[in-house]
Structure formats: structure tokens, C-alpha cells
């Protein structure tokens, strides 16, 4: 195994080899999850805190389940999204958590960069980014990779299947931390990433992004897509103003039943959730066998176990397997 970084703040922290390690370790933990008693002692005596400054029941549950299945003590710290409103500075909050004593903190915040700042302030404590503003959501990208690898099948333990894989990411890329993590992750494994969005929902600059192509015409791209990942139109981030109407957006960029038929038969449909059926994805498309949206959620726990293991549990792989 290649050395794993101290923190997981961004997909940029992981090279292809580290990603392969995560996927391999995830296989072991997925097996644990299928047991009658899905619990291993790997992180017994270690303390993991979830520090969510922005609400997210799904992601928090996924991380906490992962930590508990590894027998870690789990502390849950909920806070309003604005530290100004709370009257306590972010740094004070972190120092409090640190004083209590943590082996890992899992941070979600509506402001980009908070996990990176937290990582600068803590000692002997791993920081995991569980989503920061528009910036990154690395475990989401990792669970997408795992889901894709699982779907491609063939018992391939490596990541060769990603080489040349045609991945199409559709929707509000500008405001999407998931997209930023996905693009880096897929590209690191050699996939060809195409972005599809109206120009207003693309980032202001794609300079340095490992993207093969950009299109404003979803229909033209579907026929040469192996994996399609749909992003939610982030209405709460004001993306509504970036397109004239939802109707117009849906007409151009939603994966409708008609469009799903244009995908190659083996193509995989992904959505990081929560889905807005009828906007970015038609309800019947979400129910197709090629849609792996529920698998994504299930794999999330195993992937997060793998990440916590690699950050905290070096040398104990045998115990898990």
C-alpha cells in the first residue's frame, strides 16, 4: 500500500495508488457489512467526532455508521452553519473539540476551505472533509468510484477498468463540491471526463482541470457515455438565477426516459443525492436497473470505513478482513 495522507481534505490528496488502496480496503469492509453482526474491533478505543456546521442527515449517518461498525467511540457535534451567528469562532470550537481529545474529526461546512483550516489547527488528529461549500466532497467521489467498479464487474481488484472510461457529469458543476471531487478522482484513474452544463453553471475557469471536453448539448454526448453522473440543481445556493427557468433547464439537461434510451446498454447512471425527481432526473430513470443510486448510498458506509481505517488504523488490515 502507498502511504496514505494525514488528512483527507480533497481528492487532490490522493494519487491513483491511494485511490486503489481505498477501493481494495472497501472490499473488505463491504464484506463486514454483509455479516449478521456487521461490527469489527478495528478502531476500538479511538474517538471520532462528526462536526457538521451544515445539515446533512445522510452523510452524517453514513460516517457515524462507518465509525461505529469499526467500534470507534463517536461524538456528534451539531452547529449552525454560521459561526458568526453562534458567537464562537470556528477556531475556538476546534480547540474545544481538540481538548476533549479526538483521533479524527469529520467536518462539513457551508464555507469552502474550513476542513483545510481545521487541519492546520489540530495536532495528532486526522481531518476528513465531508463536504465544504462548493469545494470538495472526497468520500462521495470515492464511493462513486467504488460503485462504478462494482458495476463494471469482472472481479477486477484493480482500477484498470477506469482507463479510457467515458464519464459524463451533467448539471450544476459551478456550485458542486461533488463534481470537483469526481473530476479529479475519475481523471486520476485515467477516465475521460466530459462536462455538460449551460455555460452559466460551469466554473468561471476550467484552467488546469483534467477534463477531456465540455459540451452544452447533452443529447450529443449520451451515445458516447459509459458513466453518467447527474448533479442536483442547487437551488439553495442561488443557482436558480443561473438558468431562466427550471423548465428550460429540464428540457436541456435532465436525464429523461427518452434520453436514457440513447445511452449505451451497459452505461451506468449515478446521482449523489438527494435527487430532485423531474428536474435533473426523471423518476422512471432513477428506477432503471442501470441506475445505481441506492448502491451508492450503501457503498458509502464501506468506503468511509476504509477511509477511517487508512487514516487511523494502519497495520490492522488483517483484523478487518
Amino acid at each position, binding site marked *: 500500500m502507498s502511504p496514505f495522507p494525514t488528512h483527507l481534505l480533497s481528492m487532490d490528496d490522493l494519487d491513483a495508488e491511494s485511490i486503489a488502496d481505498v477501493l481494495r480496503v472497501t472490499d473488505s469492509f463491504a464484506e463486514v457489512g454483509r455479516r449478521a453482526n456487521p461490527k469489527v474491533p478495528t478502531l476500538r478505543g479511538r474517538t471520532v467526532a462528526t462536526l457538521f456546521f451544515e445539515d446533512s442527515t445522510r452523510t452524517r449517518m453514513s460516517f457515524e455508521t462507518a465509525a461505529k461498525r469499526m467500534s470507534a467511540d463517536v461524538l456528534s457535534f451539531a452547529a449552525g452553519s454560521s*459561526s458568526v451567528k453562534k458567537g464562537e469562532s470556528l477556531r475556538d470550537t476546534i480547540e474545544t473539540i481538540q481538548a476533549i481529545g479526538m483521533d479524527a474529526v469529520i467536518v462539513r461546512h457551508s464555507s469552502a476551505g474550513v476542513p*483545510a483550516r481545521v487541519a492546520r489547527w489540530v495536532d495528532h488528529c486526522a481531518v476528513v472533509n465531508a463536504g465544504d461549500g*462548493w469545494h470538495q466532497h472526497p468520500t462521495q467521489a470515492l464511493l462513486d468510484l467504488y460503485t462504478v467498479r462494482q458495476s463494471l464487474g469482472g472481479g477486477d481488484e484493480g482500477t484498470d477498468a477506469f482507463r479510457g472510461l467515458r464519464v459524463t457529469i451533467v448539471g450544476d458543476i459551478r456550485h458542486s463540491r461533488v463534481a470537483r471531487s469526481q473530476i479529479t478522482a475519475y481523471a486520476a484513474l485515467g477516465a475521460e471526463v466530459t462536462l455538460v452544463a449551460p455555460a452559466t453553471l460551469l466554473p*468561471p475557469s476550467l*484552467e488546469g482541470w483534467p477534463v477531456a471536453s465540455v459540451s452544452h448539448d447533452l443529447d450529443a454526448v449520451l451515445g458516447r457515455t459509459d458513466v453518467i453522473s447527474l448533479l442536483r440543481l442547487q437551488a439553495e445556493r442561488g443557482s436558480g438565477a443561473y438558468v431562466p427557468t427550471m423548465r428550460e433547464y429540464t428540457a436541456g439537461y435532465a436525464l429523461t426516459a427518452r434520453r436514457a434510451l440513447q445511452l449505451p446498454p451497459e452505461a451506468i447512471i449515478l446521482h449523489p443525492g438527494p435527487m430532485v425527481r423531474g428536474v435533473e432526473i426523471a423518476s422512471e430513470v432513477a428506477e432503471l436497473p442501470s441506475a445505481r443510486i441506492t448502491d451508492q448510498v450503501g457503498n458509502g458506509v464501506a468506503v468511509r470505513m476504509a477511509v477511517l481505517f487508512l487514516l487511523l488504523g494502519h497495520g490492522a488490515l488483517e483484523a478487518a478482513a
Partner: protein
Amino acid sequence: MTASGPTTPELIVRGGTVVDATGARRADVLVADGTVVAVGEGLEAPAGARTLDADGCVVAPGLVDLHTHLREPGREEAETVESGTRAAALGGFTAVVAMPNTDPPLDSAESVRNVHALARGSLAQVAVAGAITVGRAGERLAPMAELAALGVRLFTDDGDGVQSAGLMRRALQYATGLGVVLGQHCEDRSLAAGGTMHEGAWSSRLGLPGMPAEAEEVMVARDIALSRATGGRVHFLHLSTAGSIDLVRRARADGVQVTAELAPPHFTLTIGCTSGYDPVFKVNPPLRPQSDVDAVKAALADGTADAIATDHAPHAPELKDLPFDEAPPGMLGLQTALALAVTELDLPIERILALLSWQPAAIAGLDPAHGGCQGGPVTEGGVANLCVVDPTATWTVDPTALASRSRNTPYAGRTLTGRVRHTILAGEPVVVDAEAQR
């Protein structure tokens, strides 16, 4: 005039090179009763005169900052008139223009008088900038004539640009009758709103909302047109993009009455500094790419820029520990401006002093030509506002050693060349050997 007792003891500044708008020459400077009484080589010091050593140093008119946030009233935990002017004196400044975005804002005669009262006895002259609009709200004109009668010569809504072109035009028309200049913080809100850094490759990658270069440039272009139409004088605050500088260069070539200041962050730091999300690098206008930094440096070299202004913007430490997008923009500047210019600009010291002393003094109406006592040549009969700079001394920036109440300097740990040795305010040595004297 603020500060200084009724009489100050005689003082001789010995062994330096006097540099002012008239040129450079080796000379001692004798000061008595707040005034320069003799300038020449090998001056005889009267008995009892205090000697300030200026060996190897440049003796120049005191520096004048067009852009200081003193924070008082309203944000005294970040800075006060007292702490800010101490930082100014240590930075070689004998005058600062205090920005009006205090709480309450400086938009009335009463609020201006209050700052004048606070500044009595301070370590640098405080010239107050008045707000252009009431409450800096951009809706109706502040009582500019009443403020002008109190000596206000520069008006600005700094922190915000005047968004309405119609209101800005009216303000410029009104200003022509008062002989005052309007300082514009160029930022079109419809383009910049919500932005926390320069929009481009870095903002896209970091996932932070950006403010595009054109948010500044469209307002520069607009105000050039308004200045041309009205004859009103516009002073552009802290320009930061190559496009803005280009517009100013062409407007001046056309004879439009606009001036421009540039701030040290924009010629010393690039956008890449924000990669770690540290809010100490958050400033408005934001740090820009290298191409803009190069344009700012070129503007300082070729005369397109009239002044280096610090945009000294203290913020309490807890505010700079907020997430990047929530933290307020701004950096300390008074104690590092001169050294950054000496270190980072490939310009002769005479040119740097022009940008930091007599040129800004003229824009602010603080020079002898406007009846003031700042930035004037070092000659007999002139008010002794002087700074003595060792252009080769090096020092390392230690945030805890700065006089400001705040610590938000992005230059912590940087070793800079060029050190202010003495500062003389109306004949009083307020800084001697880099130590404030009171």
C-alpha cells in the same frame, strides 16, 4: 494641524541625504519651533539641540497615506486613532487620510469633528475623508459643503463604490463647486456581490465565489466618462487590475482629471496566496494573478499611478479566524508600505518617496500648494514633517511587534529592506531609532 506642544526643542538631523520633490542633496536639517530653519552641509548645531543621526539615511518629507482605516469610532477593538497613528508614525507617515467607513460613518459635521477631537495630540496628522452619500448607503448626497468647511478635501464611500451612475454624476458636479476630490472604490455590486476573491482559475478550483476583474473595470470606465463630462475630479482607490490601469492611462493621456492610488498587496502578493484559505490574505480588491501584479508595478514605474496608499485595514484576530468567505477583507499596511515598496519595486528611492509623500499630499490637498504642511520640499520655513529612512537596513515583520491593535499582516516572517529610522511631526521627534517616543 494636530499634535505637538507649543514649542519643541531644537533638533538637528545630521548626515543624511535630503530627498524631496526638488531633488536630492547631502544636507543636515535644523529644526526649531516645529519649522525647518536651516538645510545645508555641516550645519552648526546650537547648544542644547538634540541630534538625530541620519548617516546613510534619506531625509524626506513625511509620508502621507491616502487610505487608512482607523476604525474609531465603532471598531476600537481593531484599531483606534491613537494606535493607528502610532503605527503610521512608525511607518514614516506624518499624515493619514482616515476613511469614513466607521460606525457611525463620517457623513456629518458632528462625526468629522469627533474624529478631529480624537486625533488631537496623536502621532500623525489625521485628515478626515468624508462619505459621499449619507450612511454610505449610496442613496443621497452627504452634506459635502459642510464637511468641506471643516477641511475635508477627499470624499469616498470606500468599502463600497457609489453604485448609481446618476448619483455619482451629481456628486461630481457638486464637488466641482467645492474644489474637492471624490475617491471611488470601484466595485460594481451586480458583478461582485458575494465574491470573496478574484474570479478565475483559483476561485474555480477552491470553490469560492469570485469577483471578476470587470467588476472593478466597468466602474473605472464609467467614472472616467463621468469625470470627463462633469470636470469633477475622481481619485481611484486601490486599483488592482491591468484593465483598470489601462483605462486610467488612456484617460490621463486624454487630459481627464483622474488620479490613481495602488496598494502594496497588489504589487507584492498574488492570488495563489489564498490557496490555503487563510483569511489573512483576503482583501478587497482581492489579490490578483501575476499579470495584474506586473501591470500594477508598471503603473508605479511609468507614472500612471500617482500614489502608493496602504489601505491599512485592521481586523480583530477572531474575525480573521472565521471561514474565508465569512471573514472581513483587509490587511494591515502602515508599518510595511515603505519597506515593501523598497523591497519589491525596482524603483529609485526618489520615485518611491514621490509615490508615498508629495504626490499623495497633493491629491489630499495637504501640501503647501493647498495651504497644508505635508509633502512639501525640505526648505527653510517649511513645517518640519519629516521621515528619515535607512534604505538598506533589513528587518523581519513580526505581527506581535506592530503598533496596531490588530495582527492581520500577510507579511509575517518576511524580511524586508528599508526601515524608517526617525519620524518628525511638526518638529517633534515622534519616532527615534524605530521606537515611538510617546
